[in-house]
């Protein structure tokens, strides 16, 4: 079977600075792929290219074997089933968590459909279930601006889940979360992976170790190596540029 996502020779050039220098990467169906690497390696940039925020100067990103994402607009990419969580929480602060999920929900996102959209019983239940799952049920009708950093992170993950994506891109999803919540997030991600593929960027090695099947290491805009966490840990170069002595 085709991989759900394959990147071929992706390059990005920010007016002279080559942030990506030919990245090759594949994500399989129902895989949780961890992307790690030093600060500035280009991980976020790669996610940006996949979801259409940044245009690649070269190379190709194919989704599910058939679509070339590099040619589509952001919202088209979403329609194909690619969801993205950003590094800094970006939710709609003026809306409540409930409303955030309501508009993020998988549905027709055209103008008229939104005008005539009615909240159905199932939709409402789905949203409320998810609110429970991400622990925001009690605050679901408060403005999101009053959520703490961690709660915002959760909400944003929730907004991705409710889109029922085929590929989920998570940029440091557990940043700012405390121990227990990290575990919960990890479990959540494992659950999600039953229905879709997940590409996660993360710096927390314990977390990576606990939930990864495969890890890809990036360095200076290229893929340095890939393998299981154990294999990676043994790699001298990865230790040098990334993990440090403890890793």
């Amino acid at each position, binding site marked *: 079977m085709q991989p759900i996502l394959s990147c071929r020779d992706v390059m990005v050039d*920010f007016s002279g*600075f080559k942030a990506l220098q030919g990245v090759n990467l594949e994500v399989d169906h129902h895989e949780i792929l961890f992307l790690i*690497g*030093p*600060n*500035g*390696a*280009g*991980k*976020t*940039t790669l996610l940006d290219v996949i979801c259409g925020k940044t245009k690649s100067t070269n190379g190709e990103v194919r989704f599910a074997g058939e679509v070339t994402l590099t040619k589509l607009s952001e919202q088209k990419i979403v329609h194909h089933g690619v969801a993205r969580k950003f*590094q*800094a929480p970006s939710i709609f602060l003026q809306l409540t968590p409930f409303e955030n999920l309501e508009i993020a929900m998988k549905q027709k996102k055209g103008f008229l459909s939104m005008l005539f959209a009615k909240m159905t019983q199932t939709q409402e239940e789905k949203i409320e279930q998810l609110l429970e799952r991400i*622990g925001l049920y009690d605050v679901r009708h408060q403005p999101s601006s*009053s*959520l*703490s*950093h*961690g*709660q915002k992170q959760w909400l944003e993950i929730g907004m991705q889940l409710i889109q029922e994506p085929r590929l989920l891109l998570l*940029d*440091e999803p557990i*940043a*700012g*979360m*405390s*121990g*227990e*919540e*990290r575990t*919960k997030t990890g479990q959540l991600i494992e659950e999600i992976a039953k229905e879709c593929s997940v590409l996660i960027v993360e*710096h*927390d*090695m314990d977390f990576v170790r606990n939930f990864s099947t495969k890890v890809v290491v990036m360095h200076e805009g290229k893929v340095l190596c890939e393998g299981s966490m154990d294999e990676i840990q043994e790699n001298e170069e990865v230790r040098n*540029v*990334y*993990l*440090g*002595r*403890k*890793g």
Partner: protein
Amino acid sequence: MLQIQELQAGYDETMILRQLHMEIPEGKIVGLLGRNGVGKTTLVKVIMGLLPIADGTITFQNTNWRKERPEQRARQGIAYVPQGREIFSDLTIRENLLLGMEALPRSARSTDIPREIFEWFPVLEEMIDRKGGDLSGGQQQQLAIARAIISNPKLLLLDEPMEGIQPSIVQLIQDVLVKISREKGMSILLIEHNLDAVLSCADEVYILDKGKMVLNGLCDEINEDELHQYLAV
């Protein structure tokens, strides 16, 4: 160095912190732990002067802080690494760092950036004339830390400083913190979620829950089970 008594504070109508006591001794690293949303960030914002004190007292080096503006507090010797980095995205790294020295008296400000900063964070030197906003997340975080310690504060407030930083540099930062606290007698308030990281470099920890300090003790002595109990969801 810093004493907080009976502190009440919060946003507009809602009080987040109630009856909060805390003490940060001179030259020590104090870890502050607590689950999401308990008010850790709120606390440092109050200390920094970004949020008003509703009730209670904050005493810094025997002066009582009430309405002092953040810049006045900064000039008395505290520095702040906020959650979310808050670097000046449109200014270069050099400019960001130079701004870190604003808290110093005019005569002590230099136009050169101390070498040690670059020794600790070499990436900043490489990118010295790039815009802060162009940096990657972790690079920005390093910049935020560097910008805070460049002014040699008496008290350093760190709100989840390791977020998004690669493991090797996390270790490095921990070492740096321990070093500057020992060598320069800097007091440090470290907010972290990673218990191990806190325990490995702090002298003392506090645990915040529902706006109150529920546990406090020296790292060597504290009961880990109790710790976990408070941090559980």
